[in-house]
């Protein structure tokens, strides 16, 4: 049962007797601070330049960006060489109008793995 109140309840009740073993799933601490396309934005295809900027340095050779279409089809995009240590970039071509999301996963320089999504629409 994953309701917010229940999550809090688990930690509260059990900590009351100092017996707790409750963990939420967390994926490291690289967080997305800026993106192109922006979340929930409209962009013009068929060629879309993608840039994701993070709060920490990332290992771009061991990170990835996937373009996921509304029907769930996923394409892993080859990452472009990037001079800035906290940015990964790619280009998506032949993007048809519709709803998409960018599913990213990065390996931070400190070894933490983070992942997330950026939804957008192409027209």
């Amino acid at each position: 049962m994953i309701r917010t109140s229940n999550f809090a309840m688990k930690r509260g009740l059990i900590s009351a007797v100092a017996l707790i073993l409750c963990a939420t799933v967390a994926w490291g601490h690289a967080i997305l601070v800026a993106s192109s396309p922006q979340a929930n934005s409209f962009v013009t295809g068929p060629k879309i330049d993608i840039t994701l900027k993070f709060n920490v340095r990332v290992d771009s050779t061991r990170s990835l960006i996937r373009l996921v279409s509304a029907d769930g089809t996923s394409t892993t995009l080859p990452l472009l060489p990037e001079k800035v240590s906290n940015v990964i970039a790619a280009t998506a071509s032949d993007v048809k109008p519709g709803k998409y999301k960018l599913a990213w996963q990065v390996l931070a320089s400190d070894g933490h793995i983070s992942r997330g999504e950026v939804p957008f629409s192409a027209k």
Partner: protein
Amino acid sequence: MQNLLDVFGFLSVLLRGLTLAFQSLLLGGIAFRILVRSRVQREPRFQLLPRMISLLRVAALGLAATQLASVSMSSAILMDTSTFHLKDIAGANFFIAGIVSAVCALLLTKSIAVEKHSSTMSSLLVLAILICSVVTSHAWARVDQRALSSAFTFIHYLAAGMWIGALPFLLIALRRSENLSQSTAIARAFSSMAASSVAVVLVAGAGLTFLYMDSPKALYGTSWGAMLGAKIWLVAGILCIGGLNFSIVRRLGTDSGRALRWLRWLVEAEIGIGFTAILAAASLGSQPPAIDLPNGRVTTQDLVQRFTPRFPRLRTPALRELSRSDEQVLKQVAESQGTASAYIPGAPALQPSTSGDIAWSEYNHHWAGIVVLCVGLLAFASQSGKAEWARHWPLLFLGLAIFLFIRADAENWPLGPNGFWESFRVADVLQHRFFTFLVLGFAILEWRIKNGRNTSWWAPYVFPAVCALGGAVLLTHSHSVTNVKEATLIDLSHIPMAVLAVFAGWARWLEVRAYPSSVKLFSWIWPLCFVAIGTTLMLYREA
């Protein structure tokens, strides 16, 4: 692999905590050896004792194991979630640092025993381990001020190891020392090293805080700040005990047998709280620092709104007011579509909490708080010696255990539609049931002790150990990587309870150690902590 993904956040924090703990032990052991050899010249017979060498070996093997586990887990995750192969991952920073650290730790197990007269090789190996730890810390990933934050981190780890990590070796030395003058000389030499290390820990910690925190408001505005607050409280607790130790050491003479006994007991508590602070540091390091989370913070208004005291919720909402659990929703969908249900524990909730859910949770918190408050008050009464009947306070935990069993998972037997055995298939419920039975066993054991029905030497230590360990595990939990305001508000109410549980546990530990001599200070601290935990639970709110 999906199961590993579910617990990856928690496991990574736990492994990082263990890595820091083993690393501190190794640093402390090597520093202690150098210290004793250079400063305790009057005692040429003193050598690193076999038990110290064993502890160093255990720490080295533990470090190698945790590093290999950490590298394996991250590699497995990367390979499973991408098209990368092992050869692609082998060049990653974390992979190289983890393997180098593990190899150095394994080499240490050999060099520790071989080096009779010099610690040069061991010192170099432990230095390499420290560098590997820094390059897998948050400082190394910073975009700005990378060199400065890495330098602060290096110094912080080094000094923490020389202070907290060396304490177990001091304890062994004090226990095994052949005479009082030798113990006094060792304690005095350690005291000087610890005082210097404390100063360095505080300066480096302040430097990192300056780099990672943009405003004092982040202390309550972010989960990172809340964890930093917990670490500050723990360090304050260790400093209080350290201060007592310092004053004892300064007054040690040739007839200080009792003072040395107290010194040993206080060092035990200092070790316990110290390593809890190290685990909390791992949890702190698993989150983005406050400076990276300028938006969505908890504001002063949020705090006032959430923490303004209100009368506890003493009436439960009806079961029908609760929303269905995600498992139930998915089960119903699967049944209607004739497909197998798929549910991922730890995934975001499918549906938000309703007012009924919140009322249910608050009711549970508030009654649990009333029970814990009563435990604290009855313990006070029992300590005063004026209320003999109050020694039955452990029985209150029996009530709490039954309460937890019935209400913690409302969708299961006896309240919900899921049957008794069916409910055990859900990991969360299984976990709750396990803790419920643990509380039950603990309550019965403590009650038997209080009533003279269990005289085993180990029995009185179960209560402090469970309290301290529970608080430590709560502090080692992982956090949401994004600045979810609600999660921060929950942290702000629950992290203080974890710190109080740690303090309660170690205060009770000292009371038990000092028995039959009565030291009022420690016998009052832990009931006071229970009163504070109970009050916090009673004031808990979710909206």
